[in-house]
C-alpha cells in the first residue's frame, strides 16, 4: 500500500520516514549534550550586531523584493524579455491564442 512500484525502481515513504526519525533522534541527542547554561530572557538572548544599535522589528526584516537580488540582477535581460508580453491587455492574450492555434494547425496538417 505504501510502496510505489514502477518500471525501474520503488519509492517507500515509510523507509524515508523511519530514516528521518532516526536522524532526528540523533540530532536531539547531540543537542542534549550541548551547553546547558543558556538562559532565556537575559542578555544572552539579545541581538548583537557588532555593538550597533539594533533597529526596530519592521526594519530588521528583509523585504521580499530584496530576496534573491543577485539572481534577478544576473537575469535582468531574461526578465525584461519575459515582462514584455505580460501587458495585462486582453486583446494581446487573444492574439497569442491566434498565433499558437495557427502554428498548431500547421503542425497537425503537415503531420497527416
Amino acid at each position, binding site marked *: 500500500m505504501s510502496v510505489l512500484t514502477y518500471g525501474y525502481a520503488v519509492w517507500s515513504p515509510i523507509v524515508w520516514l523511519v530514516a528521518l526519525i532516526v536522524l532526528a533522534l540523533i540530532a536531539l541527542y547531540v543537542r542534549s549534550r550541548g551547553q546547558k547554561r543558556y538562559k532565556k530572557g537575559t542578555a544572552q538572548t539579545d541581538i548583537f550586531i557588532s555593538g550597533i544599535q539594533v533597529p526596530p522589528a519592521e526594519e530588521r526584516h528583509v523585504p*521580499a523584493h530584496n530576496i534573491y537580488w543577485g539572481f534577478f540582477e544576473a537575469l535582468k535581460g531574461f526578465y525584461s524579455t519575459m515582462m514584455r508580453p505580460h501587458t495585462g491587455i486582453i486583446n494581446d492574450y487573444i492574439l497569442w491564442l491566434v498565433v499558437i492555434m495557427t502554428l498548431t494547425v500547421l503542425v*497537425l496538417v503537415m503531420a497527416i
Partner: protein
Amino acid sequence: MEYLTVHSPILIVAVPLLAAFVTPLISRMGNKVRDTFNVTLFGFTMFLVAILAIDIYTGGTRVYTLGAAVPELAIPENYMVPVRIMFQVDGISIFMGLTTTIVMLAALVYSLQFLKNETGQDRFYSLLMLLYVGMIGLEFTGDMFNLFVFLEILSIAGASLASYRTNLADAVEGGFKYIVISAVSALLVLFAIGILYGQYNLLSIAALANAMQFNTLDMIALAMLAIAFVMKLAGVPLHMWAPDTYAVAPAGITPMIYTSSAASMYALYRVTFTLYGGHFDTTAIGWVVIILGVLSMFIGVMMAIHQTDIKRLMAYHAISQSGYMLLGVGVGLAVLTDPVALASYGRDAMNGGIFHIINNALYKGMLFLTAEAIFFRIGTRDLNRMGGLGHNMKWTTIFFIIGALAISGIPPFNGFASKLLIYESVFRFNPLLSIIAMFVSLVTLASFTKVFYSAFTGPEMPAYKEVREVPRSMLIGMGIMAACIIFFSIFPGLVVDTIVAPATEALIDQASYINGVMGVAP
C-alpha cells in the same frame, strides 16, 4: 441503494444543480439554515460520488443515457448511433470527479466563516454549486455538445465568483478577463464541434471516435479543441489571464477555478486520447503538448519567483505545475502508437502526470487557502509588507509548510512521488526534458522559501501584534487538504494502483470507451 448506484451519474449533477437554484430561497430562512442545507446536500453528493467510484472500480465504465428505458442502453431501437444526452464515466472521469469533490468540500467548508461578514452570500453559494456542476458534468459527459454546455456553465460561474468582491477594482478586471478568454475558448470548442458534426452527423464522443477519418478538417478541429483547452488550463504562452484572475478571486474560489483548469486539462486528454487516439499517429500532437508543458513549467516558475504579491506568485506556480501534468501525459501521447515505448516508460509517465493532477489540486489548493488566510487577517497580499506571522498564525504556518514542501517535491510528500514518476520515465524519452523538470522543482523550492521567510519568519511586527489565527471553519478547510496530502504521501502505492492506474488505462484503451457505447446496440 441499488437505485442510487444506478442513477448516481445523473444525481451527482442534479443534486448540486438543485442546491444552486434553491439556495437563494433557503437563504431567506437564515444563513445557518442555508449553510446546513448546502453542506448536507453536498455531503449527499459526496456519498453518491463514492458509490459511483466503487461501482466503476469494481465493474468498469458506466454509461448513463437520459430518457432511455434502461440507462445503460446508449443506442435507441432502430438507430445505428447514439442520439440522446449521455454520461460515460470511466477511470479518468471518476478520478477527476474525486479530485473535484475533495477540493469542493474544502472550498465549501473554508468559505462558511470566510464570508461571514460579506453581502450576497446566497448568490455566492449558488454560483459555487453551479461551478461544481459545470466541472463534474464536463468530466462525466459522453458527448461533445454537453462538454461545451458544461464548459460554459463552469466558465460563467467561475467568472462571476472571481469578480465576487466587486468593491475591489482588480477583482472585476480579473473576472472580466476570465469570461473573455472562456468565451473565446468556448466558441473555438463550439466551432470544432460544428466541423465534426458537419462531417459525421454525430455528437457522442465514442461514436465520433469510431467514425473519425483523420482528414484535414479533423486536424483543424483538433487544433481548435486542443488550443482552446490549453487556454483554459493556462498553459504558457496562453497563461497570462491566470495570475490576474487567481490573485483576485475570494478564498475557496481560487482552488476551485484552479481545479476547473484541471477539468479543462481532462477535456484536452479526452479529446487527444479518446476522440483522436486509435489509428492516428499521435506523435505530433504529443510533442505539441510536451512543448507547451515544458514552457509552462519553466516560464511559470521563473515568473513566480519574481513576484511579491503572494497570490500572483502562487498563480504562476499553478501554471508551472500544470506543465508537469502536460509533460507526463504528453510523453504518453507521443509514444501511444509505439507499444514497446508505451510499456517501457510511456505508461509510467502518464501515471506520474495524472497522479500530479490530484496532488497538485490538494497542495496548490491548500496554498491558495493559506494565502487567503493571510489576506483575511492582515488585508494585504504584498509580501514586502508581511513578516513574523508565524508567531500568531501557527496553524496557517504549519499548513503552509506542508503545502510548500509538497509542491517543491520534497520527500516524503506526495509531490515527490508524482514528480519521481515523471522524472524517471521522461528521462527515458528525452533526458533534457527531465533535467528541466528537476531544475523547475529546485526553483519552486527557492520561491516558497522566499514566501516562508517573508511572511511567516522574522521578528513579530508591531502592526501585526493583534493578528489572531483564522476562524475554525477556515482551519478545517485547510485541514481537509492537509489530511489528504499526508494520506497521499504515506500511501502513494495505494493511490496509484487504485485510482491513478485505472485513469491511465482508460485514456490508453480507446477501444473500451468506444465499445462502452457502440457495443451495447440492441
